[in-house]
Structure formats: C-alpha cells, structure tokens
C-alpha cells in the first residue's frame, strides 16, 4: 500500500478500515542466502539495500526482541556530517545525503528535519579546531559556517553567553544537520525491505553459529537452526556477546549512554546545539520535549540503565549552558548499550571465518550512519569488497596503525 496525503484523507472519511500491517510476520524458513542478525536501524537498512540493489535473494533479518527495541529506538536522533578525518567525513556526508532523499525513497514519513546543528565555541583554541573542522567539511562538500556571537544570539537568545568561566565565543554550524524520528527509521526500512520480500523475524534470538572447516553455515536460534550462505552480525551493543559465540574477541567495550526528555514545552529550541565546555547536547522534539544527553557511563555495562553521577553531570552542563532548563520538568531518563570501539570509529568488514560478516563499533554516533551503514554493509555482503566510502572501517586498521581517532585522544574507549 502506498502512503500519501490523499490516502490519509480517504481513510479518515471511511473509518480507517483500509490500513493493513506495514510488514508481514513470517515463519523462519530453513535456509536463506543472507541472514542478518539484529533488527535495529542498521540491520533493517542492510536488508533493504541488499534486496533493492543487489538482486533477488532470500534474505532474513533475525531480531531477538521487537524491531526498534534497541538503540535505534533509544537515541537522541541527531544527524550530521561534521566530521574531520578522511576515513569518516565522506561516509557521513554520503549518509546525510541519503537522509535527504530517504522519505521519498521509502514512501515513509521519518520526519527528517534539517533544522541545523550548532557546535558552540568557548575559547580561541576551540575556535581554531572548529575552523579546521569546518574547512574539512567544506572540502568534502558537506557545507559549514562559522557563526558570530551576534548571529547566535538572534536564534538562541536564552543561552548563557556571558558565563564567567565559559563565555560563548561563536559556533560552527552545519545547516543541513538536524533530527529524524528514530522509530520511524526502523519502521520505514522494515516496511520497505518487507515489500522486496525480506523476512523480518522477531522474537528470534541467535544463540550460536554453525561453523564447519572455517566456514559459517548458518545460525542456531531460539526458533531452531537456520542455514545461510552469508551471515551478517549487526547487533550494536551486543556485538562482543554475539561474536564470542564464534570465538572472536573484538576491539569493543559495551557501555551505557543515557538520554533525557522533559515535559512538552512550546517551541523554544529551533535547532540542535552542543556545549563546547562540557558534554551536553540538546534539541526539541516535535512533541515539544527537550531531548538531551551528555557523557556515557564510563564502565562496561549491559544494564540498559545508567547511574546517578552521570545524570548530575549532564544536568549541571545543561544548566551551565541553558539556565532556563531548570524550570522544565524531566519526564523520562533511559539508557542504551553502545558498542564502544577502541578508536571511536566503526567496523564494517569480513571476519576470518568465511561467510561471517561484522558491522559494529558505532559508539554513540551510529544513528546518523544508518542509511550509509546499510548501503555499505549490503555492498560488502553482495560483492565481498568494501564500499568505496567504508574502506577505512576494517578490523586490521588497529594492527596496521591506521586508527581513525576522530577526537585525537588515543585509541581506548575511556578516552573518547
């Protein structure tokens, strides 16, 4: 069924009796060409691009819970391509361009909103670093603009500009950045993949791999063995747990990142802003809630809930930047488990086991990567060669000394 404005009106006038389920609920088949493990944004996008671009194949997405129950439904929904390094910026810019066309392509309202992202500057050194970053963005066709305090005051009059310790000195803006309705990304990709015949199988946990003579033959699941020519892991925060079942140790630690949302308010925050002196970022959802976050809880965790000290730190940073925040009431706080890679950058690669592929290490920034990650992973699965823009995201970069340390802080998760 095609969704359209006309359809909404027609259904409204006929008692909404014509809407059907957006995807099927199929039984798992005994064998597939491709089995993708994990029904998050990346897994569903991978299935969609695989089915669309790389020919007719039997494809399944196996999800242990319900699709969208992982980080794709827990993140703070920010999209941007304001990266510095060569291995990253072309990839994230491709992703941003894919977001710009996504809703038309999927025929699904994902509420892609290019309301702009602004990284605030509080010192001369930070200005130099952000000018350099802005230039890298411009060279990669992403566009960037340095804003003066006067320009920022016009759009965000309520910020704490004249703080004694961290006055606002300007900002780096990417006007094409913004937010996307996160659940709708999972649902949109699921519906589109389903329309190409992809089986989306929920409540199906992968519990092990069948590996014979160094080749992966399929997966053991809570719903029985499923054979596959190619098996693709795409489970974000659960990456180490899953791959340990294939005997692999990964350059990844799992930690919690928390997110916060206030009660609904009238429109006050027109774009996405980030504090340059502490770790805090915020936007306002279309429902009116201020959505914000900050540092992860910096120790290994699979708890999907965080601890109070980080909450205190995030709120303090928020109050330092937006004193008015203290008048809003917090509605909800939650956490998601992130796959923190050693250098802060992702991995899309084959493994040493034939027929077993890996996508993970997205840390706190994989939502914006969803379309490009899906496309590049599909390309790798179909052709066994990395996609041009994802060539740097290989396992062996650590061995070869080609870390992609975007923050320049060192190759260890507790540093970035």
């Amino acid at each position, binding site marked *: 069924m095609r969704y359209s404005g006309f359809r909404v009106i027609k259904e409204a006038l006929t008692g909404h009796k014509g809407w059907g389920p957006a995807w099927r609920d199929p039984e798992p088949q005994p064998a597939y060409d491709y089995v993708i493990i994990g029904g998050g944004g990346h897994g569903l996008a991978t299935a969609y691009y695989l089915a669309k671009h790389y020919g007719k194949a039997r494809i399944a997405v196996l999800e242990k819970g319900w699709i969208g129950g992982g980080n794709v439904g827990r993140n703070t929904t920010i999209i941007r391509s304001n990266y510095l390094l060569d291995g990253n910026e072309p990839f994230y810019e491709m992703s941003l361009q894919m977001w710009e066309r996504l809703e038309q392509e999927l025929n699904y309202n994902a509420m892609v909103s290019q309301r702009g992202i602004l990284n605030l500057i509080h010192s001369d050194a930070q200005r130099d670093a952000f000018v350099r970053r802005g230039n890298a963005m411009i060279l990669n066709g992403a566009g960037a603009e340095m804003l003066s305090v006067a320009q920022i005051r016009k759009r965000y009059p309520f910020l704490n500009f004249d703080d004694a310790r961290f006055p606002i000195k300007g900002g780096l803006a990417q006007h094409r950045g913004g937010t996307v309705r996160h659940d709708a990304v999972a649902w949109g990709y699921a519906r589109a993949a389903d329309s190409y015949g992809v089986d989306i199988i929920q409540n199906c946990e992968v519990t092990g791999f069948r590996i014979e003579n160094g080749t992966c033959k399929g997966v053991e699941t809570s719903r029985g063995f499923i054979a596959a020519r190619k098996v693709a892991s795409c489970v974000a925060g659960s990456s*180490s747990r899953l791959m340990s079942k294939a005997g692999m140790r*990964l*350059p990844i*630690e799992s930690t919690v990142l928390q997110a916060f949302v206030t009660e609904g308010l009238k429109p006050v925050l027109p774009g996405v802003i980030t504090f340059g002196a502490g770790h805090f970022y915020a936007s306002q959802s279309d429902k009116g809630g201020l959505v914000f976050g900050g540092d992860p809880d*910096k*120790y*290994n*965790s699979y708890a999907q809930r965080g601890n109070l000290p980080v909450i205190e730190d995030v709120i303090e940073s928020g109050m330092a930047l937006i004193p008015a925040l203290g008048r809003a009431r917090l509605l909800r706080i939650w956490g998601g488990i992130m796959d923190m890679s050693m250098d802060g950058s992702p991995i899309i690669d084959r493994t040493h086991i034939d027929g077993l592929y890996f996508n993970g290490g997205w840390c706190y920034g994989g939502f914006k990567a969803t379309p490009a990650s899906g496309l590049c992973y599909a390309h790798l699965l179909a052709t066994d060669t990395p996609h041009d823009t994802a060539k740097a995201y290989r396992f062996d970069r650590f061995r070869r000394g080609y870390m992609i340390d975007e923050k320049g802080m060192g190759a260890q998760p507790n540093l970035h």
Partner: protein
Amino acid sequence: MIINHPLLGPRDAQEFTYLGDAALIHRPDWQAEDAQDQFHDYLYLRDNPAGEHRELWFHESGDRSWLVVTRNTVTHEISKVELARDVARSEGRSR
C-alpha cells in the same frame, strides 16, 4: 556504585577512573617472536562479557592505587575488590 576499597573501606565509584578488562595487567614480552601480534591483542582486544567481569579501576581522587574489581555488568553488583599489585604478584609478576 560503591567500591569497597581493601585499604580504605567503601568509597563512591565517582572517586575512581575506569580502565577496563583486567587482562591489561599482563603486558606481553616485547622480545617475543610474535610480540607484534601479542601487543595488538593486548592493546585492542577486550573481554566484554555480560555478567562477571574483572576490571581495573584507578583511585584517582583517593590514594591513587589500582584495583581489580570483579563486577557484574548486568546488575552492577560488585563481588570482589583486590589491590592490583596483589593480583599481579599472585599471578607471577615480580614488580
């Protein structure tokens, strides 16, 4: 979280910084034939289980000792706290 420091008693986890997998105690021999492989694994690969995890914590705003904490990564429950130097010595390190 409260970490029960073997010398100082219960301390708020906020006083500590976290380094991760306690396997980091065992720095490989730099003169070994396969030192490059060993250092790659040592530096970049981690045990990352859901459940019991042995990990290094540094008492940065306290007595600056290194601890090996055994903690459940699903419940955050801490079952054992040792001085890292005791662990290293008991596992055969001289210094």
